[in-house]
């Protein structure tokens, strides 16, 4: 089964050092305090936690933007350390990311076609015609049309922009996609469309998702495994059914309790309690 594990993290630690003034004392902020997990191909791992828990620090390490201070990161069984070795183009295209805010993550001066072809230009040897074909194909895959190729980001709605961002991430055929709160900026009905799109794409390309979110109802819907983080530590890690059915850690239970529930039984209980 070893070949099925696409991503493995062993005891990842990340420290940020800040100084108070030029000669001031150095502060060490441990954003990640030893995070370990493994992720199987074709599955979805959801990372849940509140602001400041280290979710995005983890995303930056996994997408090979920042190196980890300590610990090991294995992608498809190969150890990777960007602090000591240079990344190959092949490794770069293995992991891609979709960010939370589709309004901030697209360059307003770049046409959609250029957004989609730029990663190919940098990381592959494709000819311009091949790149264009590939980008067109990707546009259709994410539910947009060829007529959108030469438009600018401001001409799109939030949901459509998120489709473009997903297309840009997928154009290099990555095996792992990091989704950093991909639907939290979107309206409910658009959120449903994007979640459906992600599910379809996962089936089609056998993609592996690491889904970062604070919305437990979305996590419950999409995840195979769930990891709950609290101040840089993993407090709960297990299959979705187990975490939601029988949460072990106090913080997980607090989180579940705080999540608003929209079912009729719950409303009845609330109305009964207030009268």
């Amino acid at each position, binding site marked *: 089964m070893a070949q099925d594990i696409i991503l493995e993290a062993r005891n990842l630690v990340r420290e940020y050092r800040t100084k108070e003034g030029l000669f001031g004392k150095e502060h060490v902020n441990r954003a990640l305090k030893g995070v370990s997990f493994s992720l199987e191909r074709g599955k979805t791992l959801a990372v849940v936690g509140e602001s400041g828990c280290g979710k995005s620090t983890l995303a930056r390490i996994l997408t090979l933007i920042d190196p980890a201070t300590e610990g090991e990161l294995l992608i498809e069984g190969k150890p990777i350390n960007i602090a000591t070795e240079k990344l190959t183009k092949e490794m770069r295209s293995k992991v891609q990311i979709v960010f939370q805010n589709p309004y901030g993550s697209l360059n307003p001066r770049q046409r959609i076609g250029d957004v989609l072809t730029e990663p190919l230009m940098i990381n592959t040897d494709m000819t311009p015609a091949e790149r264009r074909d590939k980008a067109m194909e990707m546009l259709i895959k994410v539910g947009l049309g060829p007529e959108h190729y030469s438009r600018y980001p401001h001409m799109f709605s939030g949901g459509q922009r998120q489709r473009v961002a997903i297309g840009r991430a997928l154009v290099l055929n990555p095996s792992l996609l990091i989704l950093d709160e991909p639907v939290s900026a979107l309206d409910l009905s658009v959120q*449903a469309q994007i979640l459906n799109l992600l599910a379809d794409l996962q089936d089609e390309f056998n993609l592996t998702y690491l889904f970062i979110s604070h919305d437990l*109802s979305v996590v419950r819907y999409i995840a195979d495994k769930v990891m709950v983080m609290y101040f840089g530590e993993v407090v709960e890690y297990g299959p979705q059914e187990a975490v939601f059915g029988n949460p072990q850690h106090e913080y997980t239970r607090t989180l579940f309790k705080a999540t*608003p*529930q*929209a079912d009729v039984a719950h*409303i009845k209980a609330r109305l009964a309690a207030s009268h």
Partner: protein
Amino acid sequence: MALLEIENLTVEFDTVNGRFRALDGVSYSVDPGEVLAVVGESGSGKSVAMLAVMGLLANNGHLWADKMEFEGFDLLTMSAKERRKIIGKDISMIFQEPIASLNPCFTVGAQIDETLKEHTELKRGERKARAIELLEAVGMPESAKALKKFPHQMSGGQCQRVMIAMAIACKPKLLIADEPTTALDVTIQKQILDLLLDLQHESGMGLIMITHDMGVVAETADRVIVQYKGKKMEEADVLSLFESPQNPYTKALLSALPENATGDRLPTVSDFHLGDGGAS
């Protein structure tokens, strides 16, 4: 008598592409002690109506209504000066972005003090005592010290508490909360919602909750108005809305909730046939 009564409110904005109708003949009424939730997606006009009540529409905005009354006072014909006596005192509002809605140049204490100075006869020392009292009421730790803090020294949840403290400073009869918890973490959201409901219970004020989150509606509202593209789709008490939604759009919204997913796919609004062309 209803606290706030609006009949047939229409709001339009001048844009480069001509007039845009943001709100199309919508009526609202809130009773004292009632929690009304106005729910809808972006562009549904849910904030615009309340901005019209507050007199905060941008210069390119135009409004008509058959009636817009607060406690029997006509808000349509009222002069700006008269309106200012009510706004901030009897009607107050909390906005979505707590950090952006506080002034970064002044301490929290100065900003609460400004509201009290404008609307009450309290002396300087009394106002300070009242400000500390208010921060305690909204659950701010070390409230006396917090008065001297600037907004950037506090977290989002703390800033929202300060906003609420300012909003309830003059014991308003109507509090309008425009997406008060959207920018906050769930555990903080829970604290803020509980706080708002506690304050509402204690003082018996009317509360209008503008939100896009059906979960927040389910947790707080007595009555719900669902809006879509500037029109009212449905109005019902909270239980009947969730139990037996009448309007196709409401049905679509509720079934798009991930927790209501039955199969592998989530139904989207476009799966439902809507009268005016469906969602974008």
